[in-house]
């Protein structure tokens, strides 16, 4: 009898020790009177952010920073689990679409009362690029403070474009297409004019913005895919594929290689390609490249604005210290330093006056484009509408479906999603 009881105890202990390993981590207690705040930053930024820690801690001796770098792939899952457990970091790096998602779910602290406050002078939504400010708000409330921005511009082979008569980059959508046609003629079989990725819903939106239509009107919660301007923008986009000016998804050539070889002499991308292009030129040699603001449509040359901001978790035990850190990161000087350490473009406009940014020819193009850049609509339903846009584009480009009828169908689907069915 005794033996069985002992055995039972041992097996129970074994089970408990296994389960114990899964239990949540213990609360971090402050040692030596310092408050520890935990910061979650994604990908490369997360790794480089640790360089900022020393300077911040020297200026704020009472706060200790604990930076955790999270790979982008698993970031969303981690944020959801942390939010579900109502614990996790104090400060989180978030892009605009995730700000919407987590703000709507009540996972983020409303920072509106700190906007333009005396205590935190750097948190001022007027100091940031308009697009970045818009991307930090959900239903009029501030949930995030812009950290760094990026926007998409036109990368082009200046040598090849000069050969077809373009001494400068195309300035309008019509010129862009004309240049693409001429480049294909110049290159011959297996060459393309402009690189467009069908899996990226950014392009239909950008071309529509440029023609003065918002595919999703977030204020009135209305889908505008069936708008004549939206349809003509989509037809313009699809024509690149239909006429062989852009490579379909079956062409799997790395863009850097294709650009250097002149197979894809134009593409639209963000600031991270600058270094890659410089490296490509240094290794493969013989080509000239440049960047220019996007060609304009009927209205203007709006581009897509991305980047990230810093938010405070609704479950943070130390919101004051968390906001102190965010205020520090929005300081123009810190923003310039961040550009120097991680190449993240400052979200604060005044930081661009620093000579290291103002005197850079390539960066000035981004500076110009940032004034004409928008964030995607700040609505919770964006992600599922995006999936539908991708499907529609695939149906049109790969499946050869008719643009008009597809856009009509998409408007219905999107409107149903917006109305909650």
């Amino acid at each position, binding site marked *: 009898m005794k033996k069985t009881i002992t055995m039972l105890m041992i*097996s129970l202990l074994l*089970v408990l020790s*296994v389960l114990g390993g899964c239990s949540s981590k213990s609360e971090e207690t402050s040692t030596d009177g310092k408050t520890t705040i935990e910061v979650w930053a994604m990908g490369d930024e997360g790794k480089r952010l640790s360089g900022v820690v020393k300077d911040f801690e020297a200026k704020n001796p009472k706060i200790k920073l604990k930076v955790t770098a999270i790979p982008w792939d698993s970031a969303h899952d981690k944020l*959801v689990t942390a939010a579900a457990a*109502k614990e996790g970091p104090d400060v989180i790096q978030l892009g605009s679409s995730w700000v919407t998602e987590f703000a709507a*779910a009540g996972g983020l602290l409303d920072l509106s009362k700190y906007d333009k406050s005396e205590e935190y002078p750097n948190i001022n939504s007027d100091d940031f690029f308009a697009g970045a400010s818009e991307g930090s708000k959900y239903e009029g409330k501030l949930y995030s403070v812009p950290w760094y921005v990026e926007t998409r511009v036109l990368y082009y082979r200046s040598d090849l474009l000069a050969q077809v008569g373009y001494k400068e980059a195309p300035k309008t959508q019509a010129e862009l297409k004309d240049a693409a046609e001429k480049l294909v003629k110049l290159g011959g079989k297996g060459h393309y004019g402009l690189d467009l990725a069908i899996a990226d819903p950014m392009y239909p939106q950008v071309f529509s913005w440029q023609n003065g239509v918002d595919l999703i009107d977030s204020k009135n919660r209305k889908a505008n895919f069936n708008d004549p301007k939206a349809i003509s923008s989509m037809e313009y986009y699809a024509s690149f594929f239909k006429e062989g000016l852009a490579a379909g998804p*079956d062409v799997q050539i790395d863009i850097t290689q294709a650009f250097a070889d002149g197979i894809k002499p134009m593409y639209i991308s963000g600031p991270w390609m600058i270094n890659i292009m410089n490296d490509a030129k240094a290794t493969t040699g013989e080509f000239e490249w440049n960047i220019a603001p996007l060609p304009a449509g009927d209205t203007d040359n709006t581009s897509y604005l991305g980047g990230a901001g810093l938010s405070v978790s609704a479950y943070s035990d130390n919101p004051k210290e968390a906001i102190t850190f965010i205020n520090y990161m929005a300081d123009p000087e810190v923003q310039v330093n961040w550009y120097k350490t991680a190449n993240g473009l400052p979200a604060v406009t005044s930081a661009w006056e620093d000579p290291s940014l103002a005197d850079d020819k390539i960066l000035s193009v981004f500076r110009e484009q940032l004034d004409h850049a928008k964030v995607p609509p700040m609505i919770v339903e964006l*992600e599922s509408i995006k999936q539908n846009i991708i499907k529609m584009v695939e149906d049109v480009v790969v499946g050869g479906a008719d643009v008009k009828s597809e856009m009509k169908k998409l408007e219905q689907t999107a409107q149903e999603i917006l109305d909650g069915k």
Partner: protein
Amino acid sequence: MKIRFFSNRPYMIFILPALIILSVFSIFPIFVALGVSLTNMNLIGLLNWSQVQFVGFENYMDLLADKEFRQAFFNTIFYVVFGVPLVVVASLGVALLLDYGKNKFFTAARALFYMPSVTTSVAIAVVFGYLYNNHYGLFNYVLSLLDLPKVPWLTHPIIAKISLILMAAWKSIGFNMIIFLAALQGIPKDYYEAAEIDGAKKWQKLLYIKVPLLGFATFFVASTTLIGWFQFFEEPMIMTKGGPVGSTNSIALFIYDKGFKLSEFGYAAAGSFVLFLIILALTLIQFKLRKKDNGYN
């Protein structure tokens, strides 16, 4: 009372830890998934439980009407119908061939065939992504040397499915081969000796001794492979993201996309429960069929 329960059944003490872990991590979640599938649980609901509403079977009705789910379902059937026999036949074939010898060459070959099984699917999928690349890929390069046209390995709706099947089969042959090998070595020598005395040829021994006596191993391999293929996930997730035009999407990938990309947990839970029921039903059918044939034993 409790103590008597254990003293009468001492084996309970040994299976108790496994039983508890299984209940907590496998059986309990199934009921949670069933519960969640009857609600409109999403990210908002997760953070604020008062927002969660009971919606009955609405998620299941939506699933049936969802074109994307139907496509994922038929793709999964395609994977199962072609993948399972391919894996069973190929791993049985490899095992039979490797069973003919015991020298160093056979040991090396055995290790070689087993290698893919110990590599993570993600690494394999990334490497195969390069091999299948239309422009730089090794496969198309070899074809170009033979003056054959390029094959759109991952960009043609049907070829993409086949490419994924070939890769996944290549990966899973090793593990199943080991099971067949073990079973082959467990066949008593007496049968062969008796057959030889009767003048049986090699192929007769194969057909009338080896294959029938591998019945149980075949059953095991077939049922685990079937379950594995119904849960086909990593390969399409990494290599095609379900494309082109949804033609490589699988039920598991559909569930993942709905649950973790769009945070529609209720809908995803309904999808996973449907998958659970399909697998449960098919496994039960397999067991039923198995009972009918008893082999030589």
